[in-house]
């Protein structure tokens, strides 16, 4: 199950990677968008009674719009500032989004109202939750769409070019403003989707959803911050080691304490980073002297 969860988190991880790749900003507020997307789905679907799929789509649009607003109002003024300032400003945003969401929807666990509920299907000997199947399916579709988007559309090309060299891209007539804005919008939409899959099925919708986004960090850092493929590989590595740790650590390394698997991702992350400082597939930063 953990790998599945981790794949879900990849939905968030992708959002991080997209913004980082295009704008060089690590978006700590991604967790806030995940939360916002899930709660908006609840609002549209359960409170207003719209069909679930429509609710999800609307939530994605709304979260994308809020991504746009944030980029226009705050992040655009921060272009060229040191990474520290950018990290801090997105953390400030996370605090605000999180409190606004709990202010509107409260702290109680809500039922997202997804059509899958607790249904399961049996494949041979294995029983799988329908919501997990959807999660994996959606993650794969999202991945495919991203790959195609970056590879085949002009906006995707502009994004890659801007990431590579902002000035050269500008000289070729690509608008950096448009690239930045659209990357924030896309990341917002992905975050909403991730939020829905995290809160669907047996899990309820609680403010803790945004916390899962923090757990996506080891996966993306491990894979390399600017590599969408790396995020997937990182997610799988972490999912598997987590499951293995949960299974064997009690027998072989009991002194590490119960629930060691929850911090295992961070241990792996530190170890791998010490060997490869830019992650497994990240681009090594070239320093000008």
């Amino acid at each position, binding site marked *: 199950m953990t790998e599945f969860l981790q794949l879900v988190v990849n939905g968030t991880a992708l959002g991080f990677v997209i913004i*980082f790749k295009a704008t060089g900003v*690590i978006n700590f507020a991604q967790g806030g968008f995940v939360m916002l997307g899930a709660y908006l789905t609840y609002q549209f679907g359960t409170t207003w009674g719209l069909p679930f799929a429509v609710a999800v789509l609307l939530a994605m649009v709304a979260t994308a719009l809020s991504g746009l607003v944030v980029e226009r109002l*705050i992040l655009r*003024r*921060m272009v060229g*500032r*040191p*990474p*520290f*300032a950018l*990290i*801090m*400003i997105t*953390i*400030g*945003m*996370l*605090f*605000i989004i*999180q*409190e*606004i969401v*709990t*202010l509107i929807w409260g702290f109680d666990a809500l039922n997202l109202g997804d059509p899958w509920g607790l249904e399961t299907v049996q494949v041979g000997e294995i029983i799988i939750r329908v919501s997990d199947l959807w999660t994996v399916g959606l993650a794969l579709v999202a991945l495919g769409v991203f790959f195609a988007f970056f590879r085949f559309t002009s906006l995707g090309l502009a994004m890659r070019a801007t990431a590579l060299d902002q000035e050269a891209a500008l000289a070729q007539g690509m608008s950096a403003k448009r690239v930045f804005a659209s990357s924030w919008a896309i990341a917002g939409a992905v975050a909403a989707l991730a939020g829905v899959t995290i809160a669907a099925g047996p899990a309820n919708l609680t403010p803790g959803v945004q*916390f899962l986004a*923090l757990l996506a*960090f*080891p996966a993306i*850092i491990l894979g390399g*911050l600017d590599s969408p493929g790396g995020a997937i590989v990182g997610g799988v590595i972490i999912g598997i080691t987590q499951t293995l740790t949960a299974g064997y650590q009690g027998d072989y390394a009991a002194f*590490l*304490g*119960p*629930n*060691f698997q*929850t*911090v295992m991702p*961070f*241990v792996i*992350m*530190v170890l791998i*980073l*010490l060997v490869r*400082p*830019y*992650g497994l597939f990240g681009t090594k930063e070239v*320093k000008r*002297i």
Partner: protein
Amino acid sequence: MARHNPEMVIDYGDDLKLFRSRLTQVAMIVVLLVFLLLPLQVDDFWLGVLNYVAIFAIGGIGLNLLTGFTGQVSLGHAFFVAVGAFSTAYLGGELDWPMWLWLPAAAILGAVIGAIVGPIALRLSGNYLAIVTLGLLFLGEHIFSNWKSVTGGGRGTRVDAPLAIGPIDFADLELFGSSYSRQQGLFWLLWIVVAITALIAKNIVRSRPGRAMQAIRDRDIAAEVVGVSLLRYKLGAFAVSSAMAAVAGAFYGAAVQQFVSPAEFGGQLGLILSIQFIAVIIIGGLGTVYGAILGAIVVGALPRIIQEFSGSLPFLSSGPGDDGILEVSSFNNMLFGLLIIVFLLAEPLGLAALWMRLKAYFKFWPFSY
């Protein structure tokens, strides 16, 4: 030779001066008088607030050395605060060491663990370093909640470390025949520690190591080229900053809270605490020692003041069943988020820069520059 303007630096000796002008010397005496007399004038609630501010000032000065002067981003400051708090709980509380032993022990422990983490900063920078130090919070929470004999596990532990130097017990102060309340005694103790911390930090930044650290912050490769050892100064910055965080944690446990639990410093609450320390240096001013104290006054005092007066603010609810729409703690988090954003957008160098601009304005008045 005529005396030159004391603000003008014309040789190395001027650059090293602690108090540049007659005015700063006078200001220092005023600060000293305020320090001595304030506890006699102000009631215990406000002293409690100021004691809380002192904790943030100590930790903030430490973080400013690391982030403001050396340019290493750390989201793991709360972890080192926890190291100080739990070592004090164990050494001062369980083993009953006197303060002149447990305080240096906490600082040394913080420095050692900081020096162990430091080399990571040699390999990583910027975003990667930020996230690894974030991982420290989660690892820390796991270690602290499982090391039950020292930390009391998930339930937490009481910290009753003695707060006395020789015959002077700051928790129950009696001097020259008159006795003072706990808050009064602690105020003097904590702000002495703030002053010592600030002096240490100032001495570091105005001399050779400080220049090396700032060179690393501005361009680490250039610094290395002119002969600054990255290993030595990054490690040193981590060690000193962590030691100061541990001292802050020691007093947070022993003097202010008297009870600490792993959840306060790990995971999400730990992140909030780390962010509060970062808010201290952003609001106060990155790369100035007194800025950290200014920032600590804002970050340490605001939540307490808001809590105290939440009854008179209609939109805040101070407890369950109250009819405000916002919880006080939620409001505080939102306020910090907002303050960080506003300062980064409008005044990246914080209150210290505002103060310098004000000073410059009056110095050159009536000319604009």
